[in-house]
């Protein structure tokens, strides 16, 4: 039985089709979810894709957080539903307080798109168990507001609990504190990542196939987790 993975479309979502493609290539069935519909249609995991939900107005992710579908997702995440927020999805997860900290304007003030090396710091999450800790992967990064910030206590806590999931290596593209590219919640089922693994799933269009691991991870996780 193929796993069903939901991909939410908010007004202004852009990489939703790409996330759905990545889910499909990983071997699961993508299920498109609509921001205004609180129903999750029995999906076993959810991806919040990249883009500019609600035009990034007010603050990135600040409005999307109040979408009807997010209320359901926040509840379900508390119950262990794997949730991956990519870029704008990461911002939404922070705004929804599923993850600590915030994503702010890139330090150099420019949108930046490049192929970025990451080091996987934690392979213990629902979305990274297909990797080895310490493994380096090449994933496109593209954002204008990807600078991860949090107070020192929070950063220390993230580090101490092994909740920094990935770090930028070979250059920090946006000024994120401690080079943080991805973090997780204490349970490891909710992951926010600034770079775009869904753009590294095909040799034809991506810089590598390294992004696929995030999507196969959740399938592994689901097999190991009795529904």
């Amino acid at each position: 039985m193929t796993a069903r993975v939901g991909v939410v479309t908010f007004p202004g979502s852009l990489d939703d089709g790409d996330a759905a493609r990545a889910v499909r290539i990983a071997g699961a069935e993508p299920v498109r979810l609509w921001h205004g519909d609180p129903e999750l249609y029995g999906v076993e995991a959810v991806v919040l894709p990249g883009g500019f939900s609600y035009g990034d107005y007010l603050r990135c992710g600040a409005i999307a957080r109040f979408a009807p579908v997010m209320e359901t997702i926040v509840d379900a995440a508390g119950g262990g539903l794997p949730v991956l927020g990519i870029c704008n999805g990461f911002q939404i997860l922070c705004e929804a307080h599923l993850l600590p900290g915030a994503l702010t304007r890139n330090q150099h003030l420019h949108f930046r798109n490049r192929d970025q090396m990451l080091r996987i710091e934690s392979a213990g999450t629902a979305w990274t168990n297909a990797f080895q800790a310490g493994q380096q992967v090449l994933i496109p990064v593209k954002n204008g507001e990807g600078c991860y910030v949090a107070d020192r206590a929070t950063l220390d806590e993230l580090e101490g609990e092994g909740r920094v999931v990935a770090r930028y290596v070979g250059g920090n593209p946006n000024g994120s504190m401690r080079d943080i590219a991805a973090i997780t919640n204490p349970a490891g089922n909710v992951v926010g990542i600034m770079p775009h693994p869904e753009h590294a799933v095909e040799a034809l269009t991506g810089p590598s196939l390294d992004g696929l691991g995030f999507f196969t991870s959740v399938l592994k996780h689901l097999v190991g987790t009795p529904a």
Partner: protein
Amino acid sequence: MTTHPDPAVRETPGALPGVPAEPRAATVVPQAGPVDGGRHAEPAPADEWAHGVDTVPRAGGTPEELQPYAELGLRDDEYDRIRHILGRRPTQAELAMYSIMWSEHCSYKSSKVHLRQFGEKAPPSDRLLAGIGENAGVVQVSDELAVTFKVESHNHPSFVEPYQGAATGVGGIVRDILAMGARPVAVMDPLRFGAADHPDTARVLTGVVAGVAGYGNCLGLPNIGGELVFDPCYQGNPLLNALCLGVLPVDRLQNKAAAGPGNVVVLMGAKTGRDGIGGVSVLASATFDDSSEQRRPSVQVGDPFTEKLLIEACLELYDGQLVVGIQDLGGAGLTCALTETAAAAGTGMRVSLERVPLREPSMDPHEILASESQERMLLVVAPDKLDAVLKTAEKWGVLATAIGEVTAPAPDGQPGRLVITWRDHVVVDVPPGSLVDDGPVYARPMREPADLILLQADRAETLPRPVDPEALRATVLRMISSPNLCDKTWVTEQYDRYVLGNTVLAQPEDSGVIRIDERTGLGVALSVDGNGRYARLDPYHGTKLALAEAYRNVAVTGAKPIAVTNCLNFGSPEDPGVMWQFAEAVRGLADGCAELGIPVTGGNVSFYNQTGAAAIHPTPVVGVLGVLDNVEDRVPMGFVPRSGGDHDQLFLLGETHTELSGSEWAWVTHEHLGGVPPQVDLARERVLADLIAEAARVGHLTSAHDLSDGGLAQSLVESCLRRGVAARIAVPERFAGGSMPFVFLFSESAGRVLVSVPRGHEKAFTALCAERGVSWDLIGVTDPAGDALEVHGQFQIGLDELRTAWSSTLPQLFGGPEATQAVQAPAAVTTPSAAAVKEPVVPATEAAAVTPTDAEPIVAAGPAPTAEVEQAPPAEPAGPDAGDTERPAAPDKR
């Protein structure tokens, strides 16, 4: 459709059309809904138009009233013609409409007589589903799919307000593509600015790039290529051209005809405001002078989020077959959309202007008609589909408002009339075709510029050339670090090239390649090219050269070129010299397309790119689209690293002559522009393209890179640096001695391509060349184990040194304080080693921030240039040394 709940008549005066009235303070009045009550008690400022709303009956009764037609850019005879058409003086609203529709920008009145050649000389094509005159040309590429593409200018607004000018330039061309029934899937941005080191260039360039990025990224459209050219001639007139590509199922093609009397006219998208009144139409139709700084308010303001919703809403309407006709609102706003849709169908229309949702309730009829507020589409909808349309709009959160209905043509077969009411008063009653099709057409006087003959006599082939290896080496480094030839990453990494997941090739490749069918791998390749210097020296051949370059850039990916778009950027058409340049350019493009057997499917003309008496170089920008049956077969531009250290053989295809006039070398090293541009032979270009397509198909090629600005040297450097693969080159015998090695490396002869051929394929490949009659030279090999570009017997330059020289220039010019910061900050750079790396992370190079214009510019920079900056190096996580005020790390700078 012609009644509305609030017939209040506003007796307050308006303002001069085209001149925004005194801003009224109370612009925050919320609107109750799509139909605005619109009562306004506050008095408006009195001026010469203090007569209340100028209705048609009133115009009939006051024939002698003076009208500011001259200020609106209409000539005496044009004004007389309007009076003749209407049989009375125009109302204020009508005058505004005629003035913008008959402006150069909308009517093509100076260019029309020349542009006809594109149709007359076009080769027959059974692929063309829609051509010139539509919002964009549509070309069929498979049984089920068609693509549409077009390039447009937004030059003047981008000088006045670079960010919004560029952003709305992108937004405008995207709506053109959308209006054809297509999903926009990619954009490109040919950009031209003044001298790279001029202080104002930093203002314009950074704003324009941010605007292109801000709008395109937020729409979710990958930016797959473009141009970045610097030349002092563009100092006061930068060129922002924007191209959009769209894909549609063949049966989803839309048209703009407002057919079917009784059908409802719906305005969908953003509310209408005062922005852009007289914006593109008037701005683009008058030469800049010192007052242009004050025209800022007439530049439109973009909201890409609304456009994104508009795109999704429109596509859903198309798929539900809910619209009869559709037209985007761009230059000339509602005026253009209403008149063009009605004229296309021969119908009339009744429109209740007070139904238009307004940002500013105090707007007058002529302002509503002239507003160029962005993100709006006009739909023609059957009455029984109206509910479904409004529901779809609501789903996507965009405003949709029925503002009128289509009316029947006259019983005698004459086209219908466009009747526009404002609170039950008729303010416009015109034959729509008179605005669209019956505008003035001028055969402007033309004369070859008097200086041309002297210019052409001053040939760059007589300039002193480097003759010894040391000078040649220095020239290579100087050339690749010059603003026009250097690495453009500083610009292009501000653009999202990944979104939608179908980008197979993007800048800096020769063409952008987009997969349009995931099932079959069908894709298209697109390139845009222009060379103002060539066109200045010879507009006819210069335009053919631009066409040849774009065509070749498409061909080197293995694609088959099938269609052409163009953006013709010129000075004032009232200058006979400029008009001659324009006519020659159009003739060159039309002839060239006929020779290549591919049609022009659409385009755009931008005149008045002129400050005072100084016009820009004539700058025809040509876009060529090609088809790849399977994008897996695309050929990249860069040398390919091979496992086991295998060499590929490097062949130079085509003939190299001593052609230096108009070249990048002449400009960079001698600030020289003169002589005649390189010869162009389109029959040979065609043979070359066929050869490459065939060689790509059978797997003879691992890379192919076009030769153009900067000649072979530039192509070699770019091919090496793309994936960090070294190469060893031998200068062919006939280029030995004296300055001939220089000619070999820097001549800009057209019709040449650098290809790499894997071992075992060379015999078959050269046999194919011989069979097709393409001349070739075996010039060297790739050197995967090496780390330098070596030209045997001449020089050797390390790839690191090349990369430093190539990629330092733009960050130094435009990087701001980051660049200097980076110089002081050593850190590690990891270069990914995975074979899958398409675009290796290049070591950033600001560390070598020395002026790259000296003969030996870079070598002193020290080892392994890096630019990683970390204020708090996080080598040990949770390090306590960051202090209480931990701050974000400084991003690395490139």
